[in-house]
């Protein structure tokens, strides 16, 4: 009964799928267009279930991203925690937005996420990139957002995740 009421495994499953998509190898030319799947899934769940997916959840998910990336431990964790914080403080408004407006917010948030991780990597001597082409990943994320949103909403309703 309890499990039927809040099917949180759906949330975990979507995160696992996001991790998978995040590590699937991309060809060299498409590297900068890589959508930020984990950030997108996090934004959706923080918006839809703010009492279940919060800052702590985002932080742990980010820690796993750090391991997957082989980057500094805590780097993606803090960036995703900040994304979760912004989403949580905006979630009432985000739910009212049209999908185009939501895409614009996702563009800003994934852009901020990429920028934050980039700054931290530079501060920790983890990366040397002179250009900002990696921000194209925010563009592809915003482009894919409407589909991700509809898919996750279908899953949330179908499994009545609460």
């Amino acid at each position: 009964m309890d499990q039927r009421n809040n099917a949180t495994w759906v949330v975990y499953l979507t995160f696992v799928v996001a991790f998978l998509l995040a590590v699937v190898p991309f060809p060299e030319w498409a590297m900068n267009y890589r959508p930020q799947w984990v950030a997108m899934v996090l934004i959706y769940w923080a918006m839809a279930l703010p009492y279940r997916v919060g800052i702590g959840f985002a932080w742990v998910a980010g820690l796993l991203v750090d391991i997957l990336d082989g980057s500094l431990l805590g780097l993606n964790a803090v960036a995703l925690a900040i994304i979760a914080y912004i989403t949580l403080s905006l979630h009432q408004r985000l739910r009212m937005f049209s999908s185009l407006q939501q895409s614009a917010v996702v563009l800003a948030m994934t852009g901020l996420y990429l920028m934050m991780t980039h700054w931290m990597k530079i501060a920790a001597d983890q990366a040397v990139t002179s250009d900002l082409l990696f921000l194209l990943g925010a563009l592809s994320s915003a482009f894919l957002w409407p589909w991700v949103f509809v898919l996750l909403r279908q899953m949330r309703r179908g499994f009545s995740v609460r």
Partner: protein
Amino acid sequence: MSLEYRIAAFVVLSAAVMFADNRFDYLDRVRYTLGFLTAPIFWVADTPARVSYWIDDVFVSHGDLIDENQSLREELLFARRELQLLAGLASENQRLRALQEASASVEGSILSAEIINISNDAGSRRVLINRGGQHGVVAGQALLDAHGLMGQVVEVLPFTSWVMLITDSRHGTPVQVNRNGERAIARGSRGEIPELELEYVPDTSDILAGDLLVSSGLGQRFPKDYPVAVVTSVVHDPGQAFAIIKARPLAQMDRTRHVMLLELPANEAEVAPVDGSVPAWVEVTQGEKPAEPGPAAASTDAEVQVDVAVPQALPADTTAAEPAASPETAPEDMPLPSELADIVPEPSAGQD
């Protein structure tokens, strides 16, 4: 309100974790343990590639198999022939090393591995291999493919490891020109093209386009004499203090899947020479910075050894080879050439 406090707490916590991970290695254990959680994700992510390789292997026509078998046989034959030549060279090398009292270079065993992922970070060039701590991989091991040196293990997870390629801009490989032994550090380029740049090479140095660069073994990370790269361009810019030298790595970084992990050199334990013998990584023949007790002990011992060894080798048919080979191997060492010059005419005169 509580939201602000929580995010502040997590930001502080993350900063502490990042600092600890960057400066100290307390968190290596945590990383390794979390690696157990992420291993299945890599395994699943690699499934398409594995399935496509499996399909390539299974759904292949009989004729193709016969052709492939034929070409592999021929390749093996050529490789065997070269191995035979190599055996002769190796024994000759060993005799010459014995003459100089240098300990033989150790050939470590290898562990085959497969590249299962690449870093999605545009700023670094790293690959993930399917061998990890549970297979005995340790950080610092060198990775090779069939053509040359690829990189070194930088992070070990339970079933996978991250390997930094030699083309990463934060990686420097100690190399030497195979033709004349000129040494340099090959650093990964910062540009888009995965290539190597030779750093701080004086304009007067004798490096030409087409030269083969092999690992010099200095730094004790990589084994000596593995092919690394071919010099593609040498530019002498009068406005620059050093020559601008670019090289193309020989390893097929973005095409190969099957790679080899080399054991760490076993002679690390005997870095301090106990019985006056010089470890393999100290280049006695052209050493500019050998260990302090090394050169004196080696040269004096070598003088003694030469006196003893040449009469022993005299009856064998190697005497003809040795006068020709020894000046090549010890051209810059101070005491040896004169000593050899004194000794070498004797056996040839004796044989005449």
